[in-house]
């Protein structure tokens, strides 16, 4: 079957500075794909090019249709949810309002039901439902960002370094939840991360990105076993 997301020869950058020099990878239905890479490898640029925040060249197909060059709001409507680096919390809105904005592109009646569901999946959010999002802790804001992304009932969720700035136990709880979502609800995910072992723990496949090009790829187990990867990203 065709890949849910197929990226080929993707080049992108900021003005005169080129970051991605032709990247190819894909994400199939129900998969969790991880892209590992150090700082400046081009991880965030990849996600931003895919969802249309920055211009890029090459081909990015969502379920067979080219989406490169379309505006972020159009790609969101097409089913791509993006949890940006630093969580992108809308600080002036409260928790419920943040979730409701997540469902902006949906027209159906079940939005309110979904809000209650996600508040139960993340009980801490449930306790703070009317609190200003800006006044919550980093971990809570990360949960809110993921819940907001899920509110759009997306085909594919892009996550940009969800572990950034979170306490270890919070990160573990976060990745466990992501794993559950994938297994129980079949949510396909593309996670860009530096924290390799947690990411690989829930991933089906992965790639390693260095200075704008894919250097190695393989199943989660292969990557976990690969010496280079282990030395570079697992710190063992």
């Amino acid at each position, binding site marked *: 079957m065709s890949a849910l997301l197929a990226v080929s020869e993707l080049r992108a950058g900021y003005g005169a500075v080129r970051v991605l020099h032709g990247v190819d990878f894909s994400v199939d239905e129900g998969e969790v794909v991880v892209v590992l890479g150090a700082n400046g490898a081009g991880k965030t640029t990849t996600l931003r090019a895919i*969802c249309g*925040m920055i211009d890029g060249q090459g081909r990015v197909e969502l379920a067979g249709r080219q989406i490169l060059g379309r*505006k*972020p*709001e159009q790609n*969101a*409507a097409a089913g791509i*949810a*993006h949890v*940006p680096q630093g969580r*992108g*919390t*809308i*600080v*002036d*809105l409260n928790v419920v*309002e943040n979730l*409701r*904005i*997540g469902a*902006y*592109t949906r027209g159906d009646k079940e939005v309110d039901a979904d809000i209650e569901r996600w508040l139960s999946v993340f009980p801490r959010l449930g306790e703070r439902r009317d609190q200003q999002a800006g006044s919550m802790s980093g971990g809570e804001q990360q949960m809110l960002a993921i819940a*907001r992304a899920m509110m*759009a009932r997306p085909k594919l969720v892009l996550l940009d370094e969800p572990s950034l700035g979170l306490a270890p136990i919070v990160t573990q709880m976060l990745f466990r939840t992501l794993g559950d979502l994938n297994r129980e609800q079949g949510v396909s995910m593309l996670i860009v991360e530096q924290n390799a072992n947690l990411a690989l723990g829930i991933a089906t496949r992965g790639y390693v990105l260095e200075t704008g090009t894919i250097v190695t790829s393989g199943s989660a187990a292969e990557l976990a076993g690969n010496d280079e990867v282990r030395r570079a990203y697992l710190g063992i």
Partner: protein
Amino acid sequence: MSLFLTQLMNGIGNGAIYASLALALVLIYRTTGILNFAQGEMALYSTYLFWYFTDRGLPVIVAILLTVVLSFIGGAVIERVVIRPVEKSSPLVLVIVTIGMFLALNSIVQVQFGSDIKTNLPRAYPRHVWRPGDVQISTDTLVLVGVLILECLVLYLLFQHTKLGLAFRAVSSNPESSRLAGVPAGRMLMLGWALAAALGALAGCLIIPTLGLQASSMQSILVFSFAAAALGGFDSPVGAVVGGLIVGVAQSLTTQYIKSLSDIVLVVPFALILIVLMVRPQGLFGSRRVERV
């Protein structure tokens, strides 16, 4: 005592106008992050449109509605054509663009509609003054305050209880995350400018029949509205309304009770701003984030 109450009513009447324009300024600040110097002249252009329609014999209510709708569209067009291209550049450039619009609109009005004074603009409501116990209460003041309350109600309902309003607030707070959630940020910016233009048009259509229309009608009103918006805290609509009323009342009470300042009454709003900002640099209701230009 009746004199005090009368002057209070005068102050509240003026304050309602300053509040409406200050609301418009706050809307634009929250979406584009700048002080719109052209807000007064945009309201002036709308008011000349209103005069033009009534001069063509349109009934007053129709003329007001038509003016407000056209101003709404005009505000959106201005954002799309004039503001969007420079939206990413430095705040200084945006200040220059609004100053450019300020100069252009005032002059275009005179070339297009003639620079002579227009008086006897037809009124949407009969002008009547009651004098219970020597306290003057005029329909002008009541209508101005009524319209202000209506504006606040409409904005409150729009922002708190509609999907569009929620999207607008999301974009004002974090445009990037909103776009990632599928909210068309561009259209929200246009909405902000459109609402501001419509508010300015409504304020113009209501105050001008009482004051008479000429090219400089809006200039001193705008200075007081700036003061009102700053007093209330630039990013808070509630602050704009409260600020407007405070400035209006302070102005008329100074004229009455502080003779020495009466001929430089403009010192009042600015003194108020300085005092408040000394205590709370982000204004009465503003949030800390406001400081950066």
